[in-house]
């Protein structure tokens, strides 16, 4: 079913403004449960953001300390969020580089999610930076700290966001009815995809490389010279698990936009995603086991942190992996979804370990970092805001629904 798109070429700026104003009106019910919960949080978050900019990062805004300089804004919003956005580069690889048309129906939603994730999590970085007014410094050359992993990560973030924008831009052009521009943008897609995968490899692993110099501060069960590799591999199945999770929700919420055929093929897609996850997780699991054996950390297993490690590795990597395998074999969509959720939990725990759980694990409980309510609210506000933007775009642009006729003909 076609939603509203520009039925005629927008020829003038005035037409454009009329179109935009009409698009700005809300579509669908206003007082859904989700809206009722998320709207106040977004509003509160906005106020708290202003408060944070005025007050600084100290208590009561955050619980960051000299011992724990990074909290959930870096640990969850940036590190976990970016891992979850990894579905974009994996799926664009499969669809555009390998040419597997099977996943085409979900590719635009995934790319959109990736793009929005990076935009909003760049915002989270902006909030977390103590001297945020200087945040353009690494971009403009004041100065280029090329020796720093974070410099690399920052630039790759920026370039990747642009690449995702280019990959998604055909949908915007379709929405605005810009035929010629759409053609140009579509030709850029493969280049943007290749660029994006290259950038993703480096910044996904780069997020891991950030903590390489905190050698003795990270518990030996987690610290290894292969952290970047582990981060990269885990981003594959983290991103895909997020695609599965978010896809499940989107399919229900936006089901009227999706046509019959695509509803049917969705099962195939899900199983296919499950397969990729399972393979990646088997690889990741064995890499982790190798690292463990190589490090000879047997005696550390029988400690509280050892149990935590086993929970993460066995309970939230191996077990979901096996469930994925079983789900794929039996084409059991529920198994696949359950596995995806367990995997996501595992990724969250894994990233948070590197930031403030296994990081300085030896600090007693009373001096450890726990997020303040303000940090949590702002985090939630960012996530909800992203969902709102996603919903706004999906309801207007051809993301889950069919592209307009003229676009499909090309």
């Amino acid at each position, binding site marked *: 079913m076609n939603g509203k798109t520009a039925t005629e070429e927008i020829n003038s700026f005035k037409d454009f403004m009329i179109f935009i104003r009409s698009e700005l009106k809300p579509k669908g019910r206003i007082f859904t449960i989700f809206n009722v919960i998320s709207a106040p949080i977004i509003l509160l978050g906005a106020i708290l953001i202003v408060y944070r*900019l*005025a*007050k*600084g*990062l*100290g*208590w009561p805004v*955050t619980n*960051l*300390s*000299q*011992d724990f*300089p*990074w909290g959930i804004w870096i640990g969850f919003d940036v590190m976990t969020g970016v891992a979850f956005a990894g579905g974009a580069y994996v799926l664009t*690889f499969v669809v555009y*580089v*390998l*040419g597997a048309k099977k996943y085409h129906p979900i590719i635009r939603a995934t790319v959109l999610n990736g793009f929005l994730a990076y935009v909003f999590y760049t915002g989270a*970085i902006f909030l*977390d*930076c*103590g*001297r*945020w007014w*200087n*945040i353009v*410094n*690494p971009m403009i050359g*004041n*100065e*280029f*700290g090329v*020796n*720093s*992993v*974070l*410099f*690399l990560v920052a630039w790759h973030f920026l370039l990747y966001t642009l690449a995702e924008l280019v990959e998604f831009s055909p949908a915007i052009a379709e929405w605005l009815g810009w035929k010629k521009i759409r053609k140009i943008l579509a030709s850029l897609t*493969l280049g943007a*995809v*290749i*660029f994006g*995968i*290259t950038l993703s*490899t*480096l910044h996904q*692993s*780069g997020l891991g*490389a*950030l*903590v*390489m*110099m*905190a*050698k*003795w*501060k990270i518990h030996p069960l987690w610290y290894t*010279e292969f952290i*970047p590799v582990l981060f990269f591999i885990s981003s594959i199945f983290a991103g895909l698990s997020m695609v599965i999770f978010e896809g499940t929700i989107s399919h229900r919420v936006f089901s009227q936009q999706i046509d019959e055929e695509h509803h049917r093929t969705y099962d195939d897609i899900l199983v296919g995603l499950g397969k990729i996850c399972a393979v990646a997780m088997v690889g990741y699991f064995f890499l982790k086991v190798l690292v463990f054996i190589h490090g000879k950390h047997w005696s550390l297993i029988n400690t509280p942190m050892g149990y935590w490690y086993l929970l993460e590795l066995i309970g939230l990597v191996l077990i979901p992996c096996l469930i994925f395998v079983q789900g794929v074999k039996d084409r059991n969509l529920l198994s696949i979804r359950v596995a995806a959720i367990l995997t996501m939990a595992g990724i969250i725990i894994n990233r948070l370990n590197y930031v403030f759980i296994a*990081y300085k694990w030896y600090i007693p409980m009373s001096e450890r970092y726990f997020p303040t309510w303000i940090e949590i609210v702002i985090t939630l506000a960012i996530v909800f805001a992203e969902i709102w933007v996603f919903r706004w775009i999906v309801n207007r642009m051809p993301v889950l629904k069919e592209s307009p006729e003229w676009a499909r003909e090309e």
Partner: protein
Amino acid sequence: MDRREFLKTIGIGIGGVACGDILIPSIVNAQNAFGGNEFFGVLVDTTRCIGCMRCEMACAEAHNLPLPDISNDSVFEKKRNTTETRWTVVNRYETEKGKIFVKQQCMHCNQPACVAACLVKAMKKRKEAHVTWDTNCIGCRLCMVSCPFDMPKFEYNSPLPKIQKCNLCWDRFQEGKLPACVEACPVEALKFGARRDLLDEANSRIFQNPHNYVHHVYGGHEVGGTSYIYLSAVPFEQIGFRGDLGTTPYPEFTTGFLHAVPFVDVLWPLILLGINRAIRREED
């Protein structure tokens, strides 16, 4: 010598004594045997330190930080860390050789982790060895995560926060003065000089008093060498130093990754393009 010369000389002599501040005689660039630049450093001999904390006071004075209360010993009951308003602290340790006082501050590593971590080069390693912070910092705090000694401290409670740590009195150094702590120490537990000379002096103290020192200069090779080097009468682990830092300079833990970047940046696009082209031909 004519009258003018004579007066000049006397004047300088009196002026020098009257000055009170101790001037580093004309060397703001130490020369090594090859005529190149050498690092400066500070030798901390913990067998001399009497725990008077004049160094803490002098540091606070020199950098407009809140003055510490050093009038009594009660501060020694708990171990203190440096903070954003206290760039150096003296801690007391009970050991088999009695009470030992140890001054702790940024070690001004030869290859600092914080300098490698900083994406805007706000943390700079000067050629004279000082590691200093600059205001183009974005406040990302990666330097805090990376430092093996946990020295950079962040002003969380300020909306215009700075990273604070000892800067070996870079500003005083430009004026030819000694670091404030070195100048204030009444027993010369702190000695400033070319790092190579200080290592020689440290080793000769060990050699001449083998029973008074542990035969190791901490900071000689730890994390690739630091500008603050320490002597001790007891094993360093007993006076608050980590023994497991290794001799690898910390930036080398990221070079493995950084060196992979050009390879990925060149090879990935080629491989991906190749795969795509190879597969496409088949489908057509």
